[in-house]
């Protein structure tokens, strides 16, 4: 087998092998059992005392959400103003300017919601202070927010009847002190000894061997890149993200970054099985998610490794595959794998430029983000899948003519309405946004914005439409990758994607937490012969069918105008 494929396969296997013990560990942490990291006890106690938190206080689903939303809104305001005045604050060795209000609005929301869509380049758009105090900080806390919301849902699923989702503050703080921070430190140290910068020295200037004078941007990169992946955030230190040789110096760091972004979403599944004592339920979900991921991965890798037909026509050879937008040290196989992992999980970091991917790959990347539940982001991936489960339970119930039940609780109109709204929201935001953008390009090309609509698109025709569709898909999925040729730093894109980001983050968190809270309050119905078994393979396939049908109905027309048309034309 060739070494590029072997690298991809072993990366996935290592990820799953690490996710199993990590899942066990996470389940123990939230069950309050003894773990290796009990040395963090005094730190947590200090935080509780300093902040006046009683970690034992129970919260119902409304209190839980109030705490979650209050602190998130505080971070939004804080991040916005820090970015707006970053030029006047210290730690700005390269003398970078302040962000414009619309860019600061977009950036603050984007990192708050774990998306990390970036309409600036890290080398010139932020300072070391905002890289650390806004970007890195939000990368930790947004990941912890997602995980805490999920653990709240676990608590609701665990008990027969309960009002208690656990204490938000305690779950949130432990996620940072027991999971994100210790693992990030280990990963960052590996990065540092593989050539990733980690100092406060500013931009260097050198004269190259051919006598060109060029700059070299640097900074305390390693720590940010660690949490960027572990927290499924994805925002890059440098403009080129993890394609940049200082942000991803070699194949080994590439593997670590891939493993880091995949391991928590998978580990949370295993943790769920142990924590709510339904192992089979978790394994079935893991199986379905893996099959879904592979269905997107295989066509992508085949098309990247086969190379571009258009380049073949020019007569050069493509020994490893398509190379535009890719780095030699990773090659097309690992780049194709990364592009699917980063889109099914809501990371959005890139090691190759997706805008230059083959059309089939672009299609798969967008589908990954539209479905957004094959593993999915830290915590939120399973929450998205939970919505699909509610709908699958509902439809199965209709099919057999019984009131649908999930884990001993009747699923009724209110819960199904919430689930349906959350599902429809995505389709509305993605297609509404893309349609609006396309309207401006077609009819108002000369609007006096920082980038005129006529100059937005970096490629003509179907691919140009894909650039706009991808941007809203990425914003809605809280993903953050882009077809980066799009001229997106202007008021239209900053404001429109800003609103999409915030709606598509918090409603899909509020929805599942509310559903779980509502269900958990209901009377427990013991299992009988007529009960729908939600941990069976049949039900797993039912959920898969729901996922496919909803997404095919929602997105096929839009995708047909973009990557599908481009692929068909390329084949002729």
């Amino acid at each position, binding site marked *: 087998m060739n070494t590029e494929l072997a690298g991809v396969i072993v990366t996935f296997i290592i990820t799953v092998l690490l996710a199993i013990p990590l899942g066990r560990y996470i389940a123990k942490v939230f069950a309050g059992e003894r773990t290796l990291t009990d040395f963090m006890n005094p730190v947590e106690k200090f935080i509780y005392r300093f902040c006046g938190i009683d970690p034992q206080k129970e919260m119902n689903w409304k209190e839980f959400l109030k705490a979650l939303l209050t602190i998130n809104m505080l971070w939004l305001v804080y991040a916005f103003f820090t970015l707006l005045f970053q030029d006047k604050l210290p730690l700005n060795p390269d003398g970078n300017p302040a962000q414009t209000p619309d860019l600061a609005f977009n950036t603050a929301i984007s990192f708050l919601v774990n998306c990390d869509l970036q309409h600036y380049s890290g080398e010139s758009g932020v300072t070391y202070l905002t890289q650390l105090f806004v970007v890195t900080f939000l990368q930790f806390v947004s990941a912890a927010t997602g995980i805490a919301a999920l653990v709240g849902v676990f608590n609701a699923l665990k008990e027969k009847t309960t009002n208690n989702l656990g204490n938000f503050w305690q779950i949130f703080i432990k996620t940072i002190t027991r999971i994100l921070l210790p693992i990030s430190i280990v990963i960052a140290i590996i990065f540092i000894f593989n050539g990733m910068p980690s100092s406060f020295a500013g931009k260097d200037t050198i004269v190259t061997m051919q006598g060109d004078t060029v700059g070299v941007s640097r900074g305390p990169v390693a720590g940010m890149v660690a949490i960027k992946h572990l927290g499924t955030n994805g925002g890059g230190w440098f403009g080129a993200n993890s394609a940049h040789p200082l942000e991803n110096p070699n194949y080994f760091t590439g593997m670590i970054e891939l493993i880091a972004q995949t391991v928590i979403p998978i580990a949370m599944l295993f943790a769920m099985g142990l924590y709510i004592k339904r192992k089979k339920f978790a394994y079935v979900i893991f199986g379905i998610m893996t099959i879904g991921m592979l269905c997107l991965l295989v066509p992508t890798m085949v098309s990247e490794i086969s190379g571009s037909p258009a380049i073949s026509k020019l007569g050069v050879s493509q020994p490893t595959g398509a190379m535009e937008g890719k*780095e030699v*040290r990773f090659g097309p196989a690992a780049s194709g794998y990364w592009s699917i992992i980063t889109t099914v999980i809501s990371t959005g970091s890139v090691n190759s430029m997706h805008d230059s991917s083959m059309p089939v790959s672009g299609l798969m990347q967008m589908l990954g983000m539209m479905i957004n539940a094959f593993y999915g982001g830290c915590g939120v991936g399973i929450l998205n899948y939970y919505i699909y489960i509610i709908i699958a339970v509902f439809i199965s119930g209709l099919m057999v003519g019984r009131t649908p039940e999930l884990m001993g609780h009747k699923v009724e109109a209110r819960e199904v309405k919430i689930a349906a709204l959350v599902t429809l929201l995505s389709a509305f935001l993605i297609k509404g946004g893309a349609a609006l953008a396309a309207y401006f390009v077609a009819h108002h090309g000369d609007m006096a914005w920082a980038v005129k609509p006529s100059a937005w698109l970096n490629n003509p025709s179907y691919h140009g439409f894909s650039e706009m569709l991808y941007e809203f898909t990425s914003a809605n999925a809280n993903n953050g990758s882009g077809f980066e040729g799009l001229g997106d730093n202007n008021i239209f894109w900053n404001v429109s994607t800003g609103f999409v980001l915030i709606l598509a983050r918090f409603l899909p968190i509020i929805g599942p937490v509310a559903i779980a809270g509502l269900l958990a309050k209901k009377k427990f119905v013991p299992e009988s012969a007529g009960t729908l078994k939600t941990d069976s393979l049949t039900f797993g396939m039912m959920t898969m069918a729901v996922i496919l049908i909803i997404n095919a109905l929602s997105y096929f027309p839009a995708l047909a105008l973009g990557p599908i048309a481009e692929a068909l034309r390329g084949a002729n």
Partner: protein
Amino acid sequence: MKKYLLTSIKLTAVLLVLLAVLYPLFLSAVGKLARGKGNGETVSINGKVVGYANIGQKFTQDKYFWSRPSAVNYDAAGSGGSNKATSNPEYLKTVQDRIDTFLVHNPEIRKEDIPAELVTASGSGLDPDLSPAGAKVQVKRIAATRHISEDKLNNLIDEQTVKPLLGVFGPAKVNVLKLNVTLDEMK
């Protein structure tokens, strides 16, 4: 609500100290122990820094191994790819021009022997590497320019080739800057 807000403010303050101050400070201290002291590893000739080991630079002269095309002209004050789709006719013209230029400078090479990486831009615009094939296709030109035997140059490339990780994972690669530094040292 007020109660939540007060807790939120205090918690944000303490987490900022932990995550935005202590965490990066600790890692910058660790950085001092690494090669390049956490500032990035440099390459020097006679004590003069000529580049960063991991950052590619522009090589277009016939006497050097060329690096890949770059969308940012190898100025690492920025980074990025072309973001061009291969369905874009203008982009294909650019690639055709690169092929023509390569053939003019390497008259003994046939078009089908040029690996695509030499006529396509990398993702970062700072790709430091070539595949061994991407270096070897340039050997005839350099041998003629420098009057060095092709065997010696092929050996040099083999010496400088970094094997896949543990010999089995990922592609083999050659760092163009290091290759050209040793090329200049050859007599």
